[in-house]
């Protein structure tokens, strides 16, 4: 049977060659149809052969290939008479492709499947792709030349044409959808073969040959483009820093812990940008183009401090040499432009300060909006468990470690889903729960009140000590306030944790309550602290509590007056005479280090913030090392010789404290925002701190912590963190904005010295650097009569947008419900 088929094919082949050799003529039509018949028979034969061994097929294919080549050769002969250069080009291409194929044939293994089958196989093999494209091109070209030759033929009748068209379309569709069929390979191959043959033969007859070349080319380009896009996406994902670390943590500890690290990474990004701004636009120009160290009084270490200026202790405290450098506000000169670029330093300083705040607001709100979109949009949980079961394994994993991680993450994810499910199924005894919750809140309030009172008490006491002179008291009394505040900060959250176990909330909600309570604790402490100090502003106790800016500033004011007075006296002493009213004597050369300095409250404030950040960092690291690491070591090694099981009872391994760390991060960032206007070095320090913190915490988590018992999904928590961040941002920009707008800058230091208000830089710039009409326009625009309606308009638009978004959400929910009901009906 097979041999019959072969013979037929062989004879058909011979026929072809003969026919082609003789060139065109009306004979064309008939041989083709004859061939068609022969093909028809072939086709049937093939179908019978379906379950034959591969061998015959392969042999058949071999012959087929040679036939094709033969045909190609024949075509060339016939084409040689053809006029259009296109066909000649086709020919040339064809020839080269033929050569290619032949080469590859010989090169490749004697895999009988050969090229045809290669094309039939759907390998994402690039070679395969090209070959497929080649083959398509060849097809098209052949049909192209076929059609050319046809144009000289009498057309086939309309009916036949239509029928042929249909069949060709059918075959083409079959070819296209062949991949989708779950048949065995052999069947697919055979069906493909005959369909291709059919299309080959008859496409020419329908004169659709031209233009397909572009199609094939386009298809190939599309594939290449898609591959490129995919590679690019992969590359971009690989570029995200710390992605692998975070994935590892996520797989072992769950998404809530990982969300902290993602938050940390996001903060790092923001700080990098802030760092870029302050460094590039403020610190570098001043360092490069401003007057160097030592040229101005404000830039030099005063004579009195010179001896200790370079000591490590002084530097660590950020005074001495560090104080009189680009790191702090005081160094900057108030010259309007510096250097040959005419860089407007004060303007830049001002704008960078405002810009950092503006940028931070923008990005926090943008992230909130994005999170809101992600959450509210498509939270389709209809097949939650099924999807987890069937689609969570990543088939690409080939590395055992990655596989471990993946298993862990799948397990964790299942556990999370189970927790969610259990929570939704829990039946509550409402009254008991409510009572317990009320009780818990009451306890929390008591704690807050207690800590507030404690701080108040301690502050009063230390003021009493100060009045009596600090020397009489030891270290504890001196630092009582700081110590008490830190201790409160350490123990109250644990207390809150214990209280929250009464409440029996879903872990995510419990986390929020925890965060809220700790937040309230810190704010409350700060507030009582400031209140306690308010009464003391009049007393000169400011150098004991260098925390409040307000305090410092007021102290500064008085000092300024004193210093100004002193300075005039000092100048007069230089002239060895009376104090002339309108002195026109030339300035005497004095070493800048000797000039008496005015107080520079901005630098002092900046220093305070920097010191605070540094000490905060140190505290965090030490807590991690002691609290987590040493504890883990202790539990691990002392477990053998201890009475009770350390690992299960107290103290056991610590869990990762999400809320504490998140709050720490947020408050730290608040301090940065507050202080970066006065100390441009703060973002830099923070970048460094976040960088090291990331590595240290990742290591500590993997090494010393155990996953929580109830892992939960953290998807909605991100917006909660953002909301807190926004609040802190707002709070921390208030002081800076207040000082910009209402407080005169120090007269002796900083880029705004000499002005009555810091924002006068803007008006100065407008006058000098912009054309006059600009100033006028600005003047009109800042008229309150214009601004108030504008604000009103914005409020109204906010209201409107809010209303529309609510209505969209509702419509969305309705549609979802409809979908759900339609689905369940089916």
């Amino acid at each position, binding site marked *: 049977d097979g041999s019959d088929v072969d013979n037929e094919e062989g004879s058909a082949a011979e026929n072809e060659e003969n026919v082609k050799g003789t060139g065109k003529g009306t004979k064309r039509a008939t041989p083709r149809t004859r061939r068609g018949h022969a093909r028809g028979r072939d086709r049937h034969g093939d179908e019978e052969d379906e379950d034959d*061994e*591969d*061998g*015959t097929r*392969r*042999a058949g294919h*071999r012959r087929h290939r040679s036939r094709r080549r033969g045909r190609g050769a024949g075509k060339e002969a016939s084409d040689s008479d053809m006029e259009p250069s296109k066909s000649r080009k086709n020919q040339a291409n064809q020839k080269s492709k033929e050569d290619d194929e032949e080469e590859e044939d010989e090169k*490749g*293994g*004697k*895999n*009988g*499947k050969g090229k045809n*089958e*290669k094309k039939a*196989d*759907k*390998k*994402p*093999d690039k*070679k*395969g792709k090209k070959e497929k494209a080649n083959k398509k091109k060849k097809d098209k070209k052949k049909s192209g030349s076929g059609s050319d030759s046809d144009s000289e033929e009498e057309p086939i009748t309309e009916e036949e044409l239509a029928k042929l068209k249909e069949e060709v379309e059918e075959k083409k569709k079959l070819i296209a959808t062949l*991949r*989708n*069929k*779950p048949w*065995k*390979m*052999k069947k697919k191959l055979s069906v493909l073969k005959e369909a291709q043959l059919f299309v080959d033969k008859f496409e020419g007859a329908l004169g659709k040959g031209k233009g397909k070349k572009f199609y094939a080319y386009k298809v190939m380009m599309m594939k290449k483009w898609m591959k490129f896009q995919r590679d690019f996406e992969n590359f971009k994902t690989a570029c995200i820093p710390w992605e692998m670390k975070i994935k590892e943590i996520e797989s072992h500890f769950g998404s809530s812990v990982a969300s902290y690290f993602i938050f940390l990474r996001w903060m790092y990004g923001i700080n990098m940008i802030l760092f870029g701004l302050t460094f590039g636009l403020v610190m570098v120009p001043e360092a490069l183009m401003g007057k160097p160290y030592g040229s101005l009084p404000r830039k030099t270490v005063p004579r009195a401090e010179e001896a200790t200026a370079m000591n490590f202790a002084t530097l660590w405290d950020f005074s001495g040499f560090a104080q009189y450098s680009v790191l702090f506000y005081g160094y900057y000169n108030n010259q309007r432009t510096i250097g040959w670029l005419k860089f407007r330093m004060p303007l830049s300083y001002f704008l960078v300060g405002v810009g950092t705040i503006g940028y931070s607001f923008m990005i926090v709100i943008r992230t909130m909006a994005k999170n809101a979109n992600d959450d509210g949009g498509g939270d*389709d949980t*209809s*097949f*939650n*468990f*099924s*999807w*987890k*079961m*069937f*689609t*969570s*394994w*990543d*088939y*690409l*994993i*080939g*590395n*055992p470690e*990655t*596989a471990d991680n993946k*298993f862990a993450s*799948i*397990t964790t994810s*299942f*556990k999370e*889903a*189970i927790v969610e*499910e259990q929570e939704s199924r829990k039946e509550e005894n409402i009254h008991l729960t409510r009572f317990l919750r009320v009780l818990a809140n009451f306890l929390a309030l008591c704690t807050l009140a207690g800590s507030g009172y404690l701080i108040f008490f301690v502050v009063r006491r230390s003021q009493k000590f100060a009045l009596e002179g600090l020397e009489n008291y030891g270290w504890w009394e001196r630092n009582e306030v700081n110590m008490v505040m830190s201790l409160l900060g350490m123990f109250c959250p644990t207390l809150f944790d214990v209280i929250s176990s009464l409440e029996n909330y879903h872990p995510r909600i419990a986390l929020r309550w925890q965060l809220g309570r700790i937040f309230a604790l810190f704010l409350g402490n700060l507030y009582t602290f400031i209140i306690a100090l308010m009464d003391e502003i009049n007393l000169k106790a400011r150098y004991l509590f260098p925390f409040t800016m307000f305090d410092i500033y007021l102290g500064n004011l008085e000092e300024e007056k004193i210093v100004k007075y002193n300075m005039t006296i000092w100048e007069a002493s230089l002239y060895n005479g009376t104090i002339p009213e309108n002195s026109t004597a030339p300035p005497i050369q004095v070493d800048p280090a000797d000039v008496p300095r005015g107080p520079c409250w901005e630098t002092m404030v900046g220093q305070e913030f920097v010191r605070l950040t540094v000490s905060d960092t140190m505290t965090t690291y030490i807590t991690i090392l002691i609290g987590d690491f040493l504890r883990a070591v202790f539990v691990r090694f002392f477990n053998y010789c201890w009475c009770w099981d350390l690992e299960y009872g107290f103290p056991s391994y610590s869990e990762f404290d999400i809320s504490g760390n998140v709050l720490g991060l947020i408050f730290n960032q608040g301090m940065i925002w507050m202080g970066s206007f006065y100390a441009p070095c703060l973002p830099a320090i923070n970048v460094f701190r976040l960088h090291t913190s990331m590595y240290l915490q990742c290591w500590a988590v993997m090494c010393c912590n155990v996953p929580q018992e109830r892992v939960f999904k953290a998807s909605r928590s991100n917006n909660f963190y953002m909301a807190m961040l926004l609040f802190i941002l707002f709070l921390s920009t208030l002081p800076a904005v207040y000082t910009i707008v209402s407080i005169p800058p120090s007269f002796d230091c900083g880029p705004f010295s000499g002005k009555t208000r810091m924002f006068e830089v803007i008006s100065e710039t407008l006058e000098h650097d912009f054309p006059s009409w600009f100033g006028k326009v600005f003047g009109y625009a800042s008229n309150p009569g214009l601004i108030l309606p504008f604000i009103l308009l914005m409020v109204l638009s906010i209201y409107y947008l809010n209303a529309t978004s609510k209505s969209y959400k509702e419509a969305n929910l309705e549609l979802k419900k409809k979908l759900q009901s339609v689905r369940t009906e*089916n």
Partner: protein
Amino acid sequence: VYRLHGRYHEMAPNVVPMDYTKDPDVKLPMQLIINMPELKENPFKERIVGSFSEDGEGSLSFNDFVDMFSVLSEMAPRELKAIYAFKIYDFNTDNFICKSDLEQTLNKLTREELTAEEITLVCEKVIEEADMDGDGKLGFADFENMISKAPDFLRYYFKQK
């Protein structure tokens, strides 16, 4: 395909011939195949190989081999992958995914870290979610319906060579 053949050949050089013109009847046993690096870490490797195997025992001829990789490749369309995925998860090959199939799947996925009640909970939930015709197990229609809505499905069935 040359590469595939190279891999196939690598696994058992003495058995797999380079020349397929005479169509030798060569099948590779399952053990060899599941040691391939791409499959080694996969918890479903036996099932994958099993569902492509012609003789049902898990030995793959070269045709089957190519079949398998073609379905796992990114060029295969969604419906095709769904069909084969169903076969993979159907452990007892009764053309239904019943509760015990689900339990086995879950155990393989989590390496048996979940407790028994958690396992039953999950399996019940799955049947509850996906079973449309109410027969207590998942037929192919149920599976297809559920999978077609899953966003992650295609992503994880990709295989790049």
